[in-house]
């Protein structure tokens, strides 16, 4: 049997094990239950915007909590490897196995997104919400980026942090910093903060306070933003694998540079292609958001 075959076999076995661990993690269950509750509630109490901003639930619950879940699983995997003594499975294989466990939050987020799509199609938003000219695909792409991509990216960020900053409190602190930065980079400040598209979670439309609470698009292209986020996810996996000193770091550096450049290009394109200026709905919302 070749080394490659053995590694592949170990990866498959470990991946299945990490997926099971993710499924059994109490924080995942907490987030999953809240997700189901939130989705059920929003589906039965459809807002005038038809849940156009509902990507927040998956992003916060599967993304932020997923960060901590994956951090915890990675540290657990490290402790098990340390206890085993002689390392039978390289760290990079364990990292890849852990990365494959994101299939769990990804699946849940996809289900949630499909529900949101159905709700959006069956209960079109009212005229005072989504600005005129904004397509359904635009709205659904935003929801996909905010929900599904965050559900994948959050756990991968947890994996990277566990590999590079394995200190007590890192996950909790990272969750708080993530929440603070995300809230500040929603595009809710004057001009819509075009640079915010480089952040991992943001809005592309909504009732903006700086525009008299009118529904307004903020600069950025959500289709390219989703691709940008996908490139960041790939970078995260590379960063986690790169931590293993026995990995082929020279090759990984080349791949990381290529993916990093692609991510940068996609980020710049997100800024420059599509709605580069805010578009506001001339109608004032009939009810303040949140009521």
């Amino acid at each position: 049997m070749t080394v490659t075959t053995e590694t592949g076999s170990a990866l498959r076995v470990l991946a299945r094990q990490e997926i099971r661990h993710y499924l059994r993690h109490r924080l995942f269950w907490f987030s999953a239950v809240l997700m189901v509750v939130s989705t059920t509630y929003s589906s039965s109490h459809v807002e005038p915007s038809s849940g156009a901003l509902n990507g927040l639930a998956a992003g916060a619950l599967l993304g932020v909590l997923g960060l901590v879940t994956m951090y915890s699983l990675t540290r657990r995997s490290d402790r098990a490897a340390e206890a085993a003594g002689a390392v039978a499975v390289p760290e990079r294989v364990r990292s890849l196995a852990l990365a494959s466990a994101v299939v769990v939050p990804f699946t849940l987020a996809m289900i949630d997104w499909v529900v949101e799509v159905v709700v959006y199609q069956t209960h079109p938003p009212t005229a005072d919400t989504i600005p005129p000219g904004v397509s359904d695909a635009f709205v659904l792409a935003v929801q996909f980026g905010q929900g599904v991509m965050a559900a994948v990216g959050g756990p991968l960020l947890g994996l990277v942090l566990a590999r590079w900053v394995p200190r007590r409190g890192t996950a909790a602190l990272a969750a708080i910093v993530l929440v603070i930065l995300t809230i500040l980079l929603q595009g809710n400040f004057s001009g819509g903060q075009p640079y915010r598209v480089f952040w991992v979670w943001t809005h592309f439309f909504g009732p903006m306070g700086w525009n008299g609470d009118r529904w307004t698009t903020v600069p950025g292209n959500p289709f390219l933003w989703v691709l940008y986020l996908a490139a960041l996810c790939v970078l995260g996996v590379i960063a986690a694998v790169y931590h293993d000193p026995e990995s082929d770091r020279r090759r990984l550096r080349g791949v990381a540079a290529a993916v990093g450049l692609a991510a940068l290009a996609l980020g710049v394109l997100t800024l420059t292609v599509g709605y580069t200026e805010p578009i506001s709905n001339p109608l004032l919302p009939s009810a303040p958001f949140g009521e």
Partner: protein
Amino acid sequence: MLLYLRWSVPWVRVAVAALLVATLIELVHRDAWLLWPLEGTAVALLAGAAAWCLDEQAGAVVDVTPRGLAWRTAARAPAPALLAGVWLVTVWHARDSLFGHAGAVLVQGLAALAAGTAWATSRRAAGNPMPGLALAATVIPAGAGWALVRPLPDQLPVFPYGTATPGQWATSLVAWSAVAAASLVVLALELAEARWWLRRRRPVTAGGPGRPDGGTTGVGHAGRSTWAASRSGATRQ
């Protein structure tokens, strides 16, 4: 006790938590309508930080020293008290921005502190040396997630928003007050039970280190913790 306080409490982490709490509430103060989820995040951070203050890395060692859990908890109390002080000051400073419910917000934070302290003390009494770390890693992201999403805002107004009705604020206040009261009861019972348990479970053996009056020695709650640790440790392996 001061020496114990100085070396046992993770002051850097407490300072970071206090600074973060102050920052979060200051941000809420600047734009409560936009940044309100940070209020819930701060409350969750208080619960996690309070529990973290009570972690005893060398639990297996200190559990068999003459200083009991009650003494050690009392010695560490200035750390949660400092967090409570920071919370009081920051909420007072931001009182005009809290949708007219500064009192309810204040109770949320104090209840979270009490709950974190009670939970950590309860787990410590059961023999778990570092329960705070696990609690912080769970409750902080969970609280932040809840504050962001606010699921079932009508039925479960955990962190009511500016658009919440007075009834929802009242429900929230009652619930948080109940959490605070229950936490204080649990805390008192745990700290007191340590001695009661010792009297019940550690009979003085002939020739052993018993007191002249027939009571037990001041070994703290070592017997309980050791017993509980062996019980829970077996399941954790």
